[in-house]
């Protein structure tokens, strides 16, 4: 199968027209600070720049990309910067919904549906005695006079183990959160694929059109 049909998932490609008088070296000089980050290595040869990033810092403006090639090509209308970048983060985010759908299936397979209370009581013998005592206690939860005076609602008279009770306890894990996260990551992928494409384009454009790094240093 030709990977090109699906590699748009984690590959970002684009091009930017350079200013008419801008040389290849000048363009790469302006982009150079982007490749001077921790964990980034790069090589420049004959109008081509190849970079690799490993364990890039969160503060790196290109941290979402792990590898890329930038090439300056001369056309009839002037020079053009073409870039081809790859991102494992985008691929991971694309696959994450599948993983969470798998977790949902796993949850349903592992967590057995709750049994009716009577059946549980019949099966669990002594242990259920303790919980029955606890439930009985729940029915007589004392209320401090201070809470009465301040108007707090009286505690419920029924032990609600198994229902929507306190904290995490009393409720079996359900596959719903996994489905929710599958949806969140699907949405995040669409946002990220569009956003990161635009951000890197804007970053390159700003660098190429802005003051060169040498003149900026001189000005500083």
């Amino acid at each position, binding site marked *: 199968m030709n990977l090109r049909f699906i590699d748009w998932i984690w590959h970002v490609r684009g091009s930017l027209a350079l200013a008419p008088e801008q040389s290849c070296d000048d363009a790469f000089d302006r982009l150079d600070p982007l490749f001077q980050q*921790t*964990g980034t290595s790069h090589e420049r040869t004959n109008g081509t720049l190849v970079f690799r990033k490993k*364990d*890039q*810092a*969160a*503060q790196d403006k290109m*941290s*979402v990309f792990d590898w890329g090639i930038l090439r300056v090509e001369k056309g009839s209308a002037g020079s053009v910067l073409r870039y081809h970048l790859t991102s*494992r*983060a985008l691929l*991971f*985010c694309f696959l*994450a919904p599948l993983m*969470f759908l798998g*977790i*949902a299936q796993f*949850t349903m397979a*592992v*967590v057995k549906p709750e049994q009716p209370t009577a059946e549980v009581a019949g099966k669990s013998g002594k*242990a259920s005695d*303790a*919980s029955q*005592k*606890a439930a009985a*206690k*729940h029915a007589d*939860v*004392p*209320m*401090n006079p*201070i*809470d009465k005076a*301040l*108007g*707090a*609602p009286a*505690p*419920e008279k029924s032990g*609600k183990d198994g229902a*929507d*009770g*306190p*904290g*995490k*306890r*009393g*409720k*079996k*894990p359900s596959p719903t*959160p*996994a489905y929710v*996260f599958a949806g*969140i*990551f699907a949405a*995040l992928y669409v*946002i*990220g694929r569009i*956003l*990161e494409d635009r951000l890197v384009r804007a970053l390159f454009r700003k660098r190429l059109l802005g003051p060169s790094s040498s003149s900026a240093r001189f000005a500083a």
Partner: protein
Amino acid sequence: MDGIRVGKRVIGTQAPVTVGWENIPRVEGGPLKRFFFTWFQPTMLFALLAFWYYAPNSIAKASTAIGIGIGFKVLLLGLEWVNPRFDSWRLTWKELVTDLFYVGLGYTLLRIVDDYIGSDVMVKALQGHFHADKFTWFMALPLLVQAFLISFIFDFGQYWMHRGMHNWYPLWLPHSVHHYITQLNINKGAVGNPVELFLIGLGVGGFFDFVPRAFLLAGAFGMAIGTYQHINVRFNSPRWWRFLFNTTEHHSLHHSQDYESTRSNYSGAYIFIDRMFGTCIDGEAELLGMEGGRRMSIREQMTYPFTEGWKTIRERFGRPVAAPLAVPAE
């Protein structure tokens, strides 16, 4: 770097840190903004406590607490956008995806594990073992006292577990991964190796949750105080707040690239526990992480404790490799 002497130790010799409240920047902007970011934390705490104290039984449920928790985090993400503590900690798409991956694990796989071997099981077993009527005295305490005790006992346990993680190598291995984060954002508390996330969640504070409302109030204490450990928002926390409670300032120091600073501020919510045991340092840091700020990939975060542990075992117990004989230079 010279560092700063704090008690018996010198901190900030390896990376810049700020020590002392008087040296920490304040919220900048108009009076409304300063007012908002001064009183936001106490207002939210008291509002949440009042809500859980007076909510009818039909509303005071775990599902409501989960909904409020999610809504509160979304609100705080908005505050990160409006008033960041450091621009270098701004949330990026990649950081958000990474953080939410761990949040997702917490809500799904870790939840299942907890259900079988976590603190929930421990607490259930303990409650089954001890006769419930021995604790009527606890249930008769005022709700807020019960809630505070539940959250305090949990935090006290977490303090020692966390301190243990920084002092005992087998526990440090799973916890070390969490220290590779290079910035603080609202979901960064969830980032870490699943083994560590399981360990840090162990606690028997829930042992005293006989009254559902007290347990929900205890959750409100945790949410309205502990959440600010990992957040990129500049607050003017009132003096009493930062004396009693853990703040972003305290926790940023704990995550600093300076080793000695990381050995401080272990508690999750109540910084006075650190004050009691002499491990509190009031200050903040911007440069966070390990190995000079190397960001660890998710794959490495998952495997690091095991690969590092295996390396250490091999170094200690493995067959020594015969060193080549040194030939003196002529």
